[in-house]
């Protein structure tokens, strides 16, 4: 049976045996797990040994492209990668846009599985039926930009390129790959895994088509969504500023946490150093968009004057620019920001993860836990020089930088001396949102319970980053996305209150869902233009499987439970879903007084309150409240019988 949207093949590449295998995609499995992230979870469950070492040849990389990816559906842009990340030891996803996913789909594959280890540096070329493991000896040792340029030179610019930088070659964990120089992928250490496999890059170009079962129905739905964008009154501002239109939200309404979560970047300084006008005049050089997405959240930045004139980079949204480099590293200017980012991008260092570790290291130095002996004689400060120094070390996998860039788990072990007390991390990964500044909404809460570790914003729901906005918006959003009236009653038991933990479970499902079908984006400014039925309509139109929103929601719940189960098998449970200690300390700001952990409405939350919220979360999820692990009944209800049996056999559930 031919279905629209699905390319119909799984491509498996064994680098040890140098074997390429193509198998037909089981459509029943595809319907159950949708594709993309969901399909990755299913295959990881079936094929990946839970005990595998992330650097081992037996660790696998699963790349999933959802059925909507590469079609004319609105915002059909994201594909998903999954592996056992070396920085955290969790099995979890990375999501990216860019041209790679659509070209793999257009080559005829819904899924690419990579295993084994090549004898010498290689890259993989995917071009329709022609899949080749190619020699990469001239690419090894080159940074991401150079590698990408060389591969474009060789194969043509129409090929999409995933490149790993020099850091990954040296098995540095807090790294990411770049797609076409601009889209980051694989936070958690995809390059380190690729480095351990001697896999330098992947290139893809597809010329086959993705069939659509009912083109007119799809076009109609796409037009509806597009019309909402076009009719939006603030549209011109979005076009002009891109994601920088959210700057005020970060700098002012909420805030960027600073000095290792002990301070908040002063608003006035944020506007002075990093205002949007300066950005548009002197830094922004262009904008890249993911497939069929109107948001264009990746900026091409280039320094136009001063010491670093000519330095350029392509970076995803402004998170990297402002929050990390400005607040965590306090580099001091846009120009230095771009210079630092360019270095991170070229080497493949993960801006989100590694800047947090630098921030932490500076505090450790200030407290004497790290001394000049550890730093190589250099004084660690919150500035550009320290950032570049530690980044250079990280790239070479040497010195203190080399230790830090292995991620919190390993770094805490290696540094010792009580450093864990000051590490703000969950399951080895750094959070992004400070719930003392932002208040605890679903994105902040998800950082605690996400099986991956604290990663933002997998728990995003439409009003994230919208302090003081009317919570009615949350209710409308949940209702529109098919959440049952009973659940809504539990989430909104009385006026002036909502249960963020219960709400979060539905937000998490939705993000998992969009990353599985390959349509939609967690960014509020995109998601706000969608209605739940957009997905059921588009999915039905593309695949030809008439599917209701409720069924899709059920599938997303199934996928999330499988995702949880993957990590349960690694031993994760409630004991790992921990609110960082520092969140319970009050935050003294220079310009906004004292901030404490509080709920959306400003009511302070104690540790007990947070534990109660965790209880509510597990309850809403149908998981055991003591252990935080899915119970058999829940798994059976969503057709994960084999998962239930396996967990039972291993003794994780009764």
């Amino acid at each position, binding site marked *: 049976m031919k279905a629209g949207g699905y390319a119909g093949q799984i491509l498996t590449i064994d680098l040890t045996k140098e074997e390429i295998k193509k198998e037909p995609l089981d459509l029943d499995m595809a319907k159950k797990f949708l594709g993309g992230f969901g399909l990755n979870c299913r295959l990881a469950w079936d094929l990946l040994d839970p005990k595998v070492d992330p650097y081992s040849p037996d660790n696998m990389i699963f790349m999933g492209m959802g059925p909507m990816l590469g079609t004319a559906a609105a915002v059909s842009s994201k594909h998903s990668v999954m592996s056992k990340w070396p920085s955290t030891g969790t099995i979890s996803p990375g999501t990216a846009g860019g041209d790679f996913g659509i070209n793999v789909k257009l080559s005829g594959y819904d899924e690419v599985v990579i295993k084994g280890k090549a004898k010498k540096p290689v890259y993989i070329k995917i071009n329709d039926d022609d899949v080749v493991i190619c020699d990469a000896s001239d690419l090894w040792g080159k940074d991401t930009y150079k590698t990408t*340029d060389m591969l474009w*030179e060789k*194969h*043509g*610019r129409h090929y999409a390129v995933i490149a790993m930088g020099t850091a990954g070659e040296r098995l540095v964990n807090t790294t990411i790959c770049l797609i076409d120089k601009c889209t980051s992928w694989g936070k958690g250490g995809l390059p380190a895994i690729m480095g351990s496999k001697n896999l330098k890059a992947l290139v893809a170009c597809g010329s086959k088509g993705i069939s659509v079962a009912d083109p007119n129905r799809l076009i109609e739905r796409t037009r509806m969504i597009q019309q909402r964008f076009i009719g939006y009154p603030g549209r011109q501002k979005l076009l002009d500023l891109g994601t920088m239109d959210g700057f005020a939200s970060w700098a002012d309404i909420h805030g960027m946490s600073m000095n290792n979560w002990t301070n908040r970047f002063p608003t006035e300084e944020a506007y002075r150093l990093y205002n949007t006008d300066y950005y548009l005049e002197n830094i922004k050089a262009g904008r890249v968009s993911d497939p069929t997405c109107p948001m264009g959240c990746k900026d091409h930045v280039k320094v136009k004057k001063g010491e670093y004139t000519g330095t350029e980079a392509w970076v995803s949204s402004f998170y990297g620019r402002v929050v990390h480099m400005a607040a965590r590293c306090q580099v001091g200017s846009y120009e230095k920001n771009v210079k630092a980012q360019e270095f991170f991008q070229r080497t493949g260092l993960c801006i989100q993860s590694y800047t947090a570790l630098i921030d932490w290291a500076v505090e450790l130095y200030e407290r004497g836990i790290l001394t000049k002996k550890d730093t190589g004689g250099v004084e660690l400060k919150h500035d550009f020089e320290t950032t570049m120094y530690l980044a250079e070390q990280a790239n070479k996998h040497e010195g203190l930088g080399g230790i830090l860039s292995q991620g919190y788990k390993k770094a805490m072990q290696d540094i010792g001396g009580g450093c864990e007390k000051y590490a703000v991390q969950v399951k080895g990964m750094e959070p992004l949102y400070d719930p003392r500044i932002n208040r605890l909404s679903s994105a902040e809460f998800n950082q605690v319970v996400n099986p991956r570790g604290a990663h933002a914003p997998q728990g995003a729901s439409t009003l994230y980053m919208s302090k003081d906005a009317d919570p009615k918006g949350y209710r409308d959003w949940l209702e529109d996305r098919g959440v049952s009236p009973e659940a809504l009653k539990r989430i909104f038991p009385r006026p002036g209150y909502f249960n963020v933990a219960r709400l979060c479970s539905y937000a998490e499902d939705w993000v998992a869902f969009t990353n599985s079908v390959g349509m939609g984006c967690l960014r509020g400014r995109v998601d706000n233009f969608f209605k739940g039925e957009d997905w059921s309509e588009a999915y039905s139109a593309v695949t030809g499987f008439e599917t209701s929103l409720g069924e899709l929601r059920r599938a997303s719940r199934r996928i999330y439970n499988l995702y949880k189960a993957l990590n349960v098998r690694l031993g994760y449970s409630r004991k790992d879903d921990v609110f960082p200690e520092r969140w319970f300390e009050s935050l003294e700001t220079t310009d906004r007084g004292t901030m404490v952990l509080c709920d959306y409405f400003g009511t302070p939350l104690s540790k007990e309150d947070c534990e109660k919220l965790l209880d509510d979360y597990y309850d809403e999820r149908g998981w055991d409240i003591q252990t935080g692990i899915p119970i058999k009944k829940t798994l059976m209800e969503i057709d994960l019988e084999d998962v239930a049996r396996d967990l039972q056999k291993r003794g994780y559930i009764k």
Partner: protein
Amino acid sequence: MSAMKVVIIGNGIAGFSAASTLRRLTEQCDITMVARETTPLYSACVLPDYIAGKIPREHAFVKTEKDYKHLRINTLFGCEVTAIDPDARRVTLDNKKQLSFERLILATGSGAMVFGERKKGVFTLKTLQDADAIIQHKGKKAVMIGAGAIGIEISIALHAQGYGVTIVEMMDQILPLGLDQRGADKVRGMLEEKGIKVFNGERAIQVLGGEQVEGVVTDKRELECDTLIWAIGMRPQVELAKQAGISIGEKGGIRVNSHMETSISGIYACGDCVESNDILTGEPYLNLFWHNANRQGAVAAHNCLGGTKDYPGSQNILNVDVFGNHVAGFGFTEETLCRFRDIPALRGSLADLSIIEREQNGGYYRLVVVGDRCMGGQFINITRDVGLLWSTMVQGRSITGLLRMFDNEELMCRRPWLHRVRPFFKTN
């Protein structure tokens, strides 16, 4: 005002283009077309596809009789003009009738060259009739004399029809007007892979056989065949013009100015019968191609009516499909340029000649640069962006100027189309 009387001799694409352009420009025109052939316009270029069996006979036709009626063209098909009287502004037909004209457009085309006797089984390919005859012949073993584009296309067509084919080419390579040696050898390899034999540097001396051809003798060997095809070039058909006192050029075609007017005022010429200025060198050349004839006919029509359209110049294009490989070319090859040493347009000797040649992404290309200008390109399995490269050639752009621009981001930003040309020249 009475309608201008225009007589067009010839119903190839040049003649038809002239006629249809005239009608598009004005209703006030009396158009009479006299043609030797009896059919509406067909494309001689697709006759090899017809011979191969890839398209049915009807598909070769580009126009129908209705089209002529719709355009109000008086057609005298199956008729020959025997004489032109320029002073009396009259042509005489083979049925002794006479037609007067105010303007005359000669589109008498070209004919295929042939040596020796036209025994049974000996063919050239120019007209639909020729193609019909080849198809009806149903031979088994063919020898093709001439490995230009037409020779190659017919060889492939006969191969598709189950013939054993041997090609004999006088020059040291096939496609001598479109490719240099290396490219030609690649294409030759494609032919030989399919079992077509190719002999280069060999010329046919004698045709063997009685009424029916039985073989051909070259200066190196004797080849058996029941089918012999001469594809050694087209010659402009200019007897009528010559007889009327119209100047003929050195290359053998009717001399025309940039308005497509002949040496006699009021008489124009277009298409294969004409010697036109090559767009790259400005020198007279025989670029006998469909697109040149098409454009020349339109220009002639414009100027016929009192307009002053300039013909920019003719272009040499090679475009052949060799068993799924796309072989294309523009302008001059290194070899053909060497025969043009003294052309002012090339500014001095060919010591200034340089080559850019690369295998790239499964394809091959070669650019011939003289001084600071690109004068020709050859492409095998590279289709993308070739047109853009060709247009920079035609513009006569300075290569050093282009290279300078390629490295300047500001300039490239405002000229995005140059990004597509850049990969042909730069490798970083």
